[in-house]
């Protein structure tokens, strides 16, 4: 069974896979609330100084303006501002099409026109129920327009390492493995010292022989010899050395 996550991986025709992190009803509702407040401010800003002196004529203009703002505010922002209305931008969200490409005019118009269904019977209750039921957190407009709403901002992690000396890596590590060492080093200040030591020890080959899944005894013998050679290469697995490797990986010398 695949592990539960809100990430959807999409394979592009070029063979590149991109990971999209779906946004659920909670941040989307807050983004909607922000947009609603912004629209209200816009209505007020139009109505009071410019249109109220014009009487009934002004009121007519006002109604046309509110219509345009209500229906084209989301479409224009979604198409011209990287899929995000100001509310969505504040929450780090963006609208994309199901296949991960930026939202098109027709998709954006469709999903926003369908708000008339989502807002039924009151306060977008149908849209909310649809997001609860749909595995991709789609409201009815998203289902029809084939769009999704995703988290665009990366979670912020402090990548600043505590100062100290850098150690060159004695063994070859892939880029994702190097990133892992750096991530560990950056997290050290927030881990308890015991926990940091415990984590570092996972990499210690002497203590970790039992952890290979499906290893036969014969394989284990060969592995121990390998570890010997490995120890000669002096990949130290104490916290300070790992921190040193991390500094070297991020380019400190």
């Amino acid at each position: 069974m695949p592990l539960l996550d809100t990430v959807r991986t999409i394979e592009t025709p070029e063979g590149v896979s991109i990971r999209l992190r779906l946004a659920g009803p909670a941040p989307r509702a807050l983004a909607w609330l922000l947009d609603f407040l912004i629209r209200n401010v816009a209505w007020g800003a139009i109505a009071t100084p410019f249109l109220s002196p014009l009487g009934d004529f002004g009121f007519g203009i006002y109604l046309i303006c509110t219509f345009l703002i209500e229906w084209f505010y989301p479409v224009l922002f979604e198409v011209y501002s990287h899929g995000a209305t100001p509310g969505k931008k504040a929450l780090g969200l963006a609208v994309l099409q199901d296949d991960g490409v930026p939202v098109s005019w027709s998709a954006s118009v469709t999903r926003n026109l369908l708000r008339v269904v989502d807002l039924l019977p009151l306060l977008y209750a149908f849209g909310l129920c649809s997001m609860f039921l749909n595995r991709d957190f789609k409201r009815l407009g998203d289902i029809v327009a084939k769009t999704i709403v995703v988290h665009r901002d990366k979670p912020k992690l402090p990548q600043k390492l505590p100062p100290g000396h850098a150690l060159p890596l004695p063994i070859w590590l892939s880029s994702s493995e190097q990133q892992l060492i750096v991530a560990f080093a950056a997290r050290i200040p927030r881990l308890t010292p015991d926990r940091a030591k415990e984590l570092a020890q996972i990499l210690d080959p002497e203590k970790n022989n039992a952890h290979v899944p499906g290893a036969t005894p014969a394989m284990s013998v060969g592995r121990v010899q390998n570890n010997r050679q490995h120890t000669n290469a002096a990949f130290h697995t104490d916290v300070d050395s790992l921190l040193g490797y991390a500094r070297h990986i991020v380019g400190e010398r």
Partner: protein
Amino acid sequence: MSPDALTVQTRTRAHWEAIDLGFALVQAHWRNLYAAWLVVILPATLLALTLAYLSNRDGKGIMYGLVLLWWLKPLYDRVLLHVMSRAVFGETVSWRGTLRAIPGLLLHSGLFRALTWRRFSPQRSFRLPTWQLEGVTGQARRRRLRALNGRGAIRLIFVCSTFETILSFGMVGLLLMLLPPESILSHLKDAFVSSFKVASYFIYLFVITIIEPFYVAAGFMLYLNQRTELEGWDIELGFRTLANRLATQQAPS
């Protein structure tokens, strides 16, 4: 708890993403969750309606029932978390298993405090796992709770109580939509007298049936996310993979 056995993807998430993961958790395990929900909500609603019937001298009985239904939420939360905490490790709990677990939950999860002065805690669902699952008490528990940062929990309770409001109004709106139009006015007048009060009880019962599992699951995922961050679970899993790779001396494919 060990991160190896988790059936949810271990990575550090922003608060909103952890909340979204909680919503996905309910979608993935809704059958078991609602079986457990029925086990606890049926007796609770029977109790509330009995109270309403017995106290109905001044016509306010149903309001007492409604308040009791709301007040007992920490009890329902415990039952839901019992099922979820096993679901994330790939175990399913039958409704009989839930029934057997209830006495333990009543006695050993701080229920009395949760129903009295902690009833109004905005971090209710976020702190529940510490009370129910960690098995620590007194000073140690207080230290644990202090170590957890509940900023995500405040957003969560705001969003979930908003969702409750939306669905309550939505249900009322739906009822009005389905009534014949000429009677809407008379029904609205009727709405503020007795028959509507009974309907309001069942509307609220329906609303918490939808929202409460999402609220508990999102709080639980915020809690898991905090522990992942504080204890480096994602690093642990990554280091295990790296250690295995180093032990067998294969370059990653």
